[in-house]
């Protein structure tokens, strides 16, 4: 099982579960995107279409997961992407079927006859907007600061050529501190998105304006804190591979991708953490191609270990 096929299985499984459970986490008065009166939220057609949607998406998800597992060693890495695309299209079709059937019944039975349309807004959202939880940005900014600090301290000791974007490039501020740029980009982008969400129109239900306003405030605060925490973890994810794999540690690696040098002891003091006998792969192992002759297999290592190191010391 390669990294690519494993990620394909994870993505397909995740999407299958997410799409199957989607109707359970939406508002009861907006099933499948169709707005219905509160007293019709549990109408027979809605219950029936919800059950049918769960059944259809569960079958589609199971089929897609089985396909990805069965084909993981037979196809190329993009096969899981095609299966994922087919799964998305099929789930979207299930959603549209349920939506159209509910909308047709709603139209035929005139569910909104005798109701008055009301639009509600909370003016305090504009005059006294909820405060953005700036303090929750501190973990992400701390990780970025630590990255800059570690990079600055280690910069003089780095070799002349370092890895950046999976390639060996000459050492420079741009190549070494590219991780910081990526961290800043992700942090700024998601903070900006959350700020826009904070300033956007609140999701208020006119039938229960006060309650839905209260719930939306709580939801937005919790969601923002979760996103900012996730940002810190993403920044950490960007930092740790660089430190664990070790930019200078790749200097003494050669051979097929994903393998370590036999018989050569691990050098202490490289990377952020000391490495054990099982070394971390220097580069991602290539997914096996049908026409490649299995060059990435660990079993072929002895044949390839005699290759000279093409990289500059």
């Amino acid at each position, binding site marked *: 099982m390669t990294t690519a096929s494993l990620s394909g299985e994870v993505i397909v499984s995740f999407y299958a579960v997410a799409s199957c459970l989607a109707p359970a986490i939406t508002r009861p008065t907006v099933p499948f995107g169709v707005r219905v009166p509160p007293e019709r939220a549990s109408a027979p057609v809605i219950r029936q279409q919800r059950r049918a949607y769960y059944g259809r998406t569960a079958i589609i998800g199971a089929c897609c997961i089985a396909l990805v597992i069965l084909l993981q060693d037979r196809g190329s890495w993009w096969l899981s992407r095609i299966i994922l695309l087919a799964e998305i299209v099929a789930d979207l079709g299930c959603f549209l079927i349920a939506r159209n059937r509910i909308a047709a019944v709603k139209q035929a039975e005139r569910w909104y006859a005798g109701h008055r349309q009301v*639009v*509600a807004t909370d003016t305090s959202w504009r*005059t006294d907007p909820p405060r953005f939880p700036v303090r929750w940005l501190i973990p992400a900014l701390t990780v970025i600061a630590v990255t800059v600090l570690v990079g600055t301290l280690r910069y003089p000791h780095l070799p002349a050529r370092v890895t950046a974007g999976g390639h060996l490039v000459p050492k420079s501020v741009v190549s070494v501190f590219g991780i910081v740029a990526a961290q800043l980009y992700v942090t700024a982008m998601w903070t900006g998105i959350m700020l826009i969400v904070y300033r956007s129109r609140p999701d208020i239900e006119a039938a229960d304006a006060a309650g839905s306003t209260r719930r939306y405030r709580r939801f937005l605060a919790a969601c923002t804190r979760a996103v900012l925490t996730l940002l810190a973890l993403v920044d950490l994810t960007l930092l740790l591979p660089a430190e664990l794999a070790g930019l200078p540690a790749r200097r003494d690696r050669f051979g097929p991708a994903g393998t370590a040098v036999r018989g050569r002891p691990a050098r202490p003091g490289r990377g952020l953490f000391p490495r054990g006998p099982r070394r971390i792969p220097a580069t991602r192992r290539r997914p096996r191609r049908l026409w490649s002759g299995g060059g990435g297999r660990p079993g072929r290592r002895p044949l390839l270990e005699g290759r000279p190191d093409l990289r500059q010391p």
Partner: protein
Amino acid sequence: MLLSVEPDGPVPIYQQIRDRIVEAIAGGGQPAGSGLPSTRQLAVDLGVNFHTVNKGYDLLRQEGLLRIGRKSGAVVQRDAGSGPPRPDWVRDWTARLQTLLAEAAAQGLPAEDIVRHCREAIAAFTFPVDGESGPGPVGPP
């Protein structure tokens, strides 16, 4: 303040906006000095035209309830604790009240019921404590 309007109702939307804000001021939800959203923001939030909100705000400004500044935005100018209103305003309001009560009488509602409805309506409003005086009547220039 939760502001709700009926886009398809018989009352014009600008009048509904004006009425809801007056009710919020009387109920204590929008005291004097509190701010209201800008006309553009409120129009976006309600999904109505900017000029509709502007017309509602303009009515409130003419009645002396709202002050609209270029920098400060829309601010409530007076509330129940701001002192007695202008005499001419009381005269106009009495005329409108007479029409409103006449509608109930014309529909056959007994006088006791009319008084009861009036009591129930004003029970939700805040009134100044006896002896307390506010900044006095404020009107348009």
